[in-house]
C-alpha cells in the first residue's frame, strides 16, 4: 500500500511533466536558451565555474517545511542527515558517505569550526535569515577562495540575507512568529538600515523554545503479525531554549570594493534526551552552549585583473555539559574553544580566459577543558594551522573549462601535506546547455582535539584521514518562456567513486572498555546521484515546481578481509535515498501569492553498525510533509501566513537507532516584512 503510494506520487509528477513538455515541444527551438535570473557580481571576466552546486534559495528555501539548515539539506542528493530528533537534537550531514567531518560548513564565506569534535550541528542554524544554502561536491568552483576552502571534501555554504534597498528606501523590517507542536515558540525580528549609500546595517534576532515532549511509539510484531509489544511514550528532557542575535555591517564603497563585518551570538540551554533503551525512558543530561564569533571581510580589485580578499575571524565557543541522571556517574564539564582565523586570497586574471589564484590562511585553535567535579587543573590544548593554496582556471574556447589547485596544509608541527585537485567541464554543443563535468580531488580530514587528546581515548600520533574523490557528472539545462507554458529544467546525473583511507576510528584498547583512536579503516564508495528540477510557468499565473532527487550509494568497508564486516555497507548509509518536492503557486491579479507544497523524503534500509546482520538492520523511513501559504501586500507591509504539517502519516521512525523521531506535527508561521 505504502509502496504504491510512493509510486503514484512519482508517476503523477512524471505525467504532469510529460504533459507540459509535450505542449511546448513543438514551439521551442533547440537553441533557445533561458537563464534563471541571478545576481552576477561581475560580468567582465568569463565565468570559469565548473561545479554546479546544489542550491536552495529565496522563496524556494522558504517553501520547504524546514526549521533549520539541516532540514533543508535533506533535499540535496548524495547527502545523509544524522538527526537525533526534536528541535534540540543534533543534526549533522554526511556528503557522499565520506563522514560528516569531511564536510565543511561556511557561514558567509568563513568556515564554522569545531576543533573539539569537528562536527557542526546544522540544527542550530535557522533558515530564517538565510538567503541561500549551497552544497558543492569537491569544492566551490570559483578559484578565488581562501586556501582552507580547498581543503574539504564537501562544502556547504550558508549565506545570510543581504540588504537590498531601492533608491527611496532606508529601512526594512521583518517580524515573524512561528508556533507549533511540542510547544514550539519561535519569534524572530530583523531590521535592515541603510546608513548611507552603499553602507547598510542588518540586525537579526531569534528565539526558539520547545519543550520537546513529543510522543513516540515502539511497536513490534511477531513473525505471524500479532503484536509483540506496542508502547507509546513521551520524549523527555528534549527541551530547548535558544537565542540567536546577529549584527552585520556591509559597505560597498566602490564598484569593485566592499567590506563587511558580521557578529554572531548564539546561546542555548537544552536537554540531551538520550537513547531510548529497555527500562530507560529519560535521561538527565543538560547542555549549555554559547557560540560567539566576529568576522570581517574586505575585497577589492585592481587594474581589472587583480582581486584581493582579506578575511578575519575570532570565535569563542563555550559548552557546559552536566549530567543530572543520578543513576549514572555525575559529570560536569566545561569546554572553552577559541579560534583566530586570517586569510588572504588573491586572484590574477592573466588573460580573459586564464586566472591564477594564490591564498594563504592561518588559524589558531585552543581548547580548555574543565572537569568541575574533580576540580582538577583545567587542561589546555592548542594548535596552529597553515594553508597555502595555488589554483588556476582556464577556459579553452567555449568547449572546455579547466581548473587545478594544489593545497599545502601544515597543522602544528606535523609534516605539511599536499593535496591536488583537478576539475574539468566540457560543453560539446555550444547551442545546447549540456555539460560533462569531472573532478578528482584529494582532501585530508585532520584529527580533532577529541581524537588527539581526549582523556585516555586520544591518540596524539594520529595521521589525518585521506579522502580521494573521483566524480563525473552530466548536466543539462533547458528553458523556454513562451505562452501558455514556459519551463525551466535542469537535470543532472553523476557518478562518483570515493575512497577514504586511514579512517580515524575508535578502537578498543585491551580490556575494561578503554578505547583509543586509530587510523584504521578504508571505505570504498560508489555512488550515483540523479536530480531534476523542473518549473512550469502555467497560464493564469500558476507555477508548478518539482524537484526530484535520487541517490544510490554503496559505501563498503574494505579495511581487512578478516573482519566479519568486510565488504559490508558502513553504518547509516542507505543504498537508496531520495526526495521529491512538488509545489503549486498562484499569483492573483492583485499580486497576492498562494501556494501548496508537498515534499517526500525517503531513506532506504540501512544498518546501524558495521556488520550487516539482521540484528543491526534498520528499516527504511519516509515522511510526507505538506504546507500551504499565502502572501499579501497590505499597506506597504508584506504579510505571510504558512501552515506546515510534517510527517503527515505519522510514521514512527528513527534516523539513528534508539532515537525516536516525532510523529505528525504542525507548525504555523505568521510573518510581516516592511
Amino acid at each position, binding site marked *: 500500500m505504502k509502496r504504491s503510494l510512493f509510486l503514484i506520487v512519482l*508517476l503523477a509528477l512524471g505525467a504532469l511533466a510529460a504533459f507540459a513538455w509535450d505542449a511546448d*515541444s513543438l514551439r521551442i527551438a533547440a537553441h533557445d536558451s533561458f537563464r534563471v535570473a541571478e545576481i552576477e557580481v561581475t560580468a567582465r571576466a568569463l565565468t570559469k565555474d565548473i561545479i554546479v552546486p546544489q542550491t536552495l534559495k529565496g522563496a524556494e528555501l522558504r517553501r520547504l517545511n524546514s526549521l533549520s539548515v539541516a532540514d533543508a539539506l535533506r533535499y540535496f542528493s548524495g547527502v545523509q542527515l544524522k538527526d537525533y530528533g526534536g528541535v534540540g537534537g543534533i543534526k549533522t550531514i554526511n556528503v557522499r558517505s565520506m563522514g560528516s567531518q569531511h564536510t565543511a560548513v561556511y557561514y558567509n564565506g568563513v568556515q564554522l569550526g569545531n576543533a573539539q569534535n569537528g562536527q557542526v550541528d546544522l540544527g542550530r542554524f535557522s533558515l530564517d535569515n538565510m538567503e541561500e544554502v549551497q552544497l558543492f561536491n569537491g569544492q566551490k568552483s570559483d578559484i578565488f577562495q581562501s586556501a582552507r576552502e580547498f581543503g574539504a571534501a564537501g562544502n556547504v555554504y550558508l549565506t545570510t540575507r543581504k540588504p537590498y534597498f531601492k533608491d527611496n528606501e532606508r529601512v526594512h523590517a521583518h517580524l515573524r512568529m512561528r508556533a507549533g507542536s511540542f510547544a514550539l515558540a519561535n519569534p524572530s525580528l530583523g531590521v535592515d538600515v541603510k546608513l548611507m549609500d552603499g553602507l547598510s546595517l542588518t540586525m537579526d534576532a531569534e528565539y526558539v523554545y520547545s519543550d520537546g515532549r513529543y510522543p513516540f511509539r515502539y511497536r513490534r510484531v511477531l*513473525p505471524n503479525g500479532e503484536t509483540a509489544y506496542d508502547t507509546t511514550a513521551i520524549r523527555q528532557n528534549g527541551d530547548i531554549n535558544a537565542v540567536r542575535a546577529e549584527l552585520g555591517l556591509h559597505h560597498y564603497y566602490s564598484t569593485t570594493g566592499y567590506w563587511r563585518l558580521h557578529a554572531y551570538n548564539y546561546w542555548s540551554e537544552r536537554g540531551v534526551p538520550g537513547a*531510548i533503551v*529497555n*527500562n530507560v525512558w529519560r535521561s538527565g543530561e543538560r547542555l549549555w552552549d554559547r557560540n560567539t564569533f566576529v568576522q570581517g571581510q574586505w575585497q577589492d580589485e585592481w587594474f581589472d585583473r587583480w582581486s584581493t580578499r582579506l578575511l578575519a575571524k575570532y570565535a569563542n565557543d563555550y559548552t557546559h555539559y552536566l549530567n543530572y541522571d543520578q543513576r549514572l556517574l555525575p559529570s560536569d564539564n566545561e569546554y572553552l574553544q577559541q579560534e583566530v582565523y586570517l586569510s588572504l586570497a588573491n586572484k590574477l586574471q592573466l588573460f580573459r580566459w586564464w586566472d591564477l589564484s594564490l591564498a594563504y590562511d592561518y588559524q589558531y585553535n585552543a581548547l580548555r577543558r574543565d572537569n568541575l567535579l574533580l576540580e582538577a587543573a583545567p587542561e589546555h590544548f592548542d594548535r596552529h594551522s597553515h594553508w597555502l593554496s595555488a589554483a588556476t582556471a582556464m577556459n579553452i574556447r567555449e568547449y572546455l573549462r579547466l581548473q587545478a589547485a594544489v593545497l599545502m596544509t601544515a597543522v602544528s608541527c606535523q609534516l605539511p601535506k599536499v593535496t591536488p585537485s583537478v576539475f574539468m567541464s566540457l560543453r560539446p554543443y555550444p547551442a545546447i546547455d549540456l555539460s560533462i563535468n569531472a573532478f578528482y580531488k584529494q582532501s585530508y580530514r585532520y584529527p580533532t582535539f577529541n581524537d588527539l587528546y581526549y582523556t585516555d581515548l586520544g591518540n596524539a600520533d594520529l595521521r589525518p584521514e585521506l579522502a580521494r574523490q573521483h566524480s563525473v557528472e552530466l548536466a543539462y539545462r533547458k528553458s523556454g518562456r513562451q505562452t501558455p507554458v514556459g519551463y525551466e529544467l535542469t537535470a543532472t546525473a553523476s557518478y562518483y567513486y570515493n575512497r577514504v583511507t586511514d579512517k580515524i576510528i575508535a578502537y578498543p584498547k585491551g580490556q575494561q572498555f578503554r578505547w583509543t583512536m586509530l587510523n584504521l579503516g578504508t571505505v570504498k564508495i560508489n555512488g550515483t546521484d*540523479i536530480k531534476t528540477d523542473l518549473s512550469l510557468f502555467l497560464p493564469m499565473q500558476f507555477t508548478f515546481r518539482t524537484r526530484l532527487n535520487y541517490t544510490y550509494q554503496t559505501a563498503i568497508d574494505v579495511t581487512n578481509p578478516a573482519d566479519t564486516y568486510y565488504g559490508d555497507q558502513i553504518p547509516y548509509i542507505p543504498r537508496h535515498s531520495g526526495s521529491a518536492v512538488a509545489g503549486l503557486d498562484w499569483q492573483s491579479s492583485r499580486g497576492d501569492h498562494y501556494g501548496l507544497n508537498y515534499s517526500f523524503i525517503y531513506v532506504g534500509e540501512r544498518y546501524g*553498525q558495521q556488520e550487516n546482520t539482521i540484528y543491526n538492520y534498520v528499516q527504511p523511513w519516509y515522511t510526507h510533509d505538506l504546507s500551504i501559504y499565502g502572501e499579501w501586500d497590505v499597506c506597504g507591509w508584506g504579510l505571510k501566513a504558512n501552515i506546515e504539517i510534517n510527517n503527515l502519516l505519522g510514521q514512527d521512525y528513527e534516523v539513528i537507532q534508539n532515537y525516536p523521531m516525532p510523529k505528525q506535527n504542525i507548525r504555523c508561521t505568521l510573518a510581516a516584512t516592511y
Partner: protein
Amino acid sequence: MHLGSYILNKQFLLLSVCVLFVCAALFCSCRGDEVIYPTIGTHVTDEQRVGGLYILNEGNMGSNKARLDYINLESGTYYSNWYGAFNPTQTKELGDVGNDIQQYGNRLYAVINCSHKVEVMDRQARHISKVDLPNCRYMAFSGSKMYVSAYVGSVADADMLGAVYEVDTATLQVTREVKVGHQPDELCVAGDRLYVCNSGGYITDRYDSTVSVIDLGSFTEIQRITVGLNPTRIRRDNSGHLWVCCQGNYKSAEPELVILSPTEVLKRVPMSCANISILGQTAYILDGEAKRLYGISTIDYSVTEFAIDLSAYEHPYGLLATTDAIYITDAKNYVSSGVLHCYAYDGHERWTAKTGDIPGHLCRVMQAYELYDDGTTPTGKPSPFISRVYEYVPAMGQFVNELPQYADGDDAEDMCRKCEQALANDARGLISLGGWGGYITFGFDHSVKNSEGRDLQILGNAFRMSGNDEYGSSEPGIVLVSRDDNGNGKPDDTWYELRGCLYADPATTHNYARTYRRADDTQHNTFHQHPYYPQWITEDSLTFSGTLLPAQTQTVNGQNVQRILEYGYVDNKPNSDVEGTTFDIDWAVDADGHPVLLPSVDFVRVYTAVDDRTDATGEISTEITGAIDLNCNK
C-alpha cells in the same frame, strides 16, 4: 536524425528521467511492520555433551543490544537471541549492556547495566520479573539473598561512592543497602562476609585499590583490604581464598593478581588478568594483553601456560573453565559480532560459534533446551545432573558449617540451597556429610530410570595412595534410593539401600543408631575452630539410624589410610574410576535385605557409613561433589 540529437530528444530524455525515478522507486523497499529480532539456531558442533551454555553479549552502550544467546551442547545448536524467543513482549528487548549472568536455584539472573536492572528469568530464560537497581554491575548469591554491586547508591553521593544492594530472591525486593568504595565491580561471598572489588574505574588517575568486606549479618562494611590498583574481579577458590584481578592504571602501575586469605594478602602475582575462572584446584587466568591463558594452582600457586593459541584473537574477553572444556570469547573490535571458542584441556580447538556484540559473560547450565521449528515452542531436555537438594543433615564433623558455609540466620532451607549451588548443574562443589549417619537427599529434574547396568554415578573426593592401590583416602557413604510413591514431590517415601560389597559382611551392623548432642560439641582441632554441630538444626540432639560399616583405617607406610572397598559406596574410589563410582538401582534391597525391583527412582540419599577417625585428618566423613544420571537422554 543522428544519435546526439536523438539523445537530446525531449520526449526521450523525459521518458528516461521518469523511468529512472520509477526504477529507483521499485528498488527502494518500503517500511513494513517492525518484526521482533529473530532467534536463529546454527549447528556448530557434532560433539554431544551435556547441558548447555548461556552467552550474555554486552552490546555497546546506547545500542540496546544486550543479547542472551544459548548453545545446546547436546545437539550442538547455537541460538542467537535466545531470550527473544521466549520474551517477545518485553518492550525494547533485553536491554542495554549485559554485564553478568548467573544461574542460582531455579532461576537465571542477568545484570543489564545501562537498563539499570537485574533481569530475573526461569532456567530457560523466560522472563519472571526484574529488579530495578541503578547502574548495577555484578551479582553474588548466598542463601536466599542476591547481592548486587552498583556504581551508585539509591541516594546520590557527592563522593560518587558505589553500593551493594541485598535483594531477597523470593520477593525480589531490595532488603538492605551498603555503601562501598568507588565503582564496585565483582563481588563474592566467603563465609558470612561479602567481598567487593572497588575499581574506581570511571575516573582515570583516581582508581581505587581496595576490597570492601561486608558483614552479611549487620550488612555493614567492616574492613577495607588494600589490594592493587583498579581491582575488577574477585573469585573464591575451594579453600576459601579470594583471587582478585587488579588491572593497574594501564600506565605506570602494572596489573597484578592478589590472593587473599580472605582478610589478608597471601600472595601477589604480577600478571595481567582480564578474566579468571576457577575450577577445582586451578585458577585459569586470561591475559588479554599478551593473549595467553595460564593456569595457577590454588594449592602451591605454580603457574602453567596452556597451549591454547589465542594469537589470532582481536580481543580475548570472556572465559569459563568447566569440567570438560574451556570457553574463551573474542570480542573482536567491540562493535561487531564476537566469537565463542571451545577448547579441550589439551589445547585443541573443538568448535567455534559466532556470537553477538561483546560476548562477555558465560554461564554453564545442565539443561539442554531446543527450539522447535516454529521458533516459539521450546522443549526442555532433562539434565543428567543434580537439580534439587531436598535435605542436608550432616552429623557432627570438622567440615560441618564450612562445606557448605553456614551464615548466621541460615535455616535448613538455606543450607539446602547452598548445597544445591555447590552440587547442581555439575558445579562440582564439595559438601561434607560429617560423621556416621549424616546425610544429604537430592534429586534430578526427572525420574532416574533403572536401565541395564549402572544407572547413577555419584562423585566424591577419594583418592588412592601412591604406590599402593589397595589403600587411600576412602570415606564410604551408603546410597539409598526412593520413589515418589505418594506423588507429593517430597522424599517421604520408602527408602531402599543399594547393597554394597560389605552389606553381608559379618562386621557390618544393620539398624545401628547414634545420637549427637550439641552439648558434646567441644573438641575442635586447630584447623577447624568452629562448631561441629550443624548450627541451623534447632534441636539440641540429632539421632541417625542405618547401616554401620566396619572402620577401615590402617597405618600403611606410616600414613593413616583406609582400605578401599570393592564397590557400592560413595567417596570410596576416585572419580576417574567409573566402575568404582557408579551404582545400579538393581542393587536395591528392602529393610529385610530382599532385592526390590524399582523401575525408576526419584530421590537419592547418601550418608556417611563408618564411624571412624584418624589423628591426622579427624573423623571419616563422606564428601560428595555431584551426581550424574547415566541413563539420561539415552
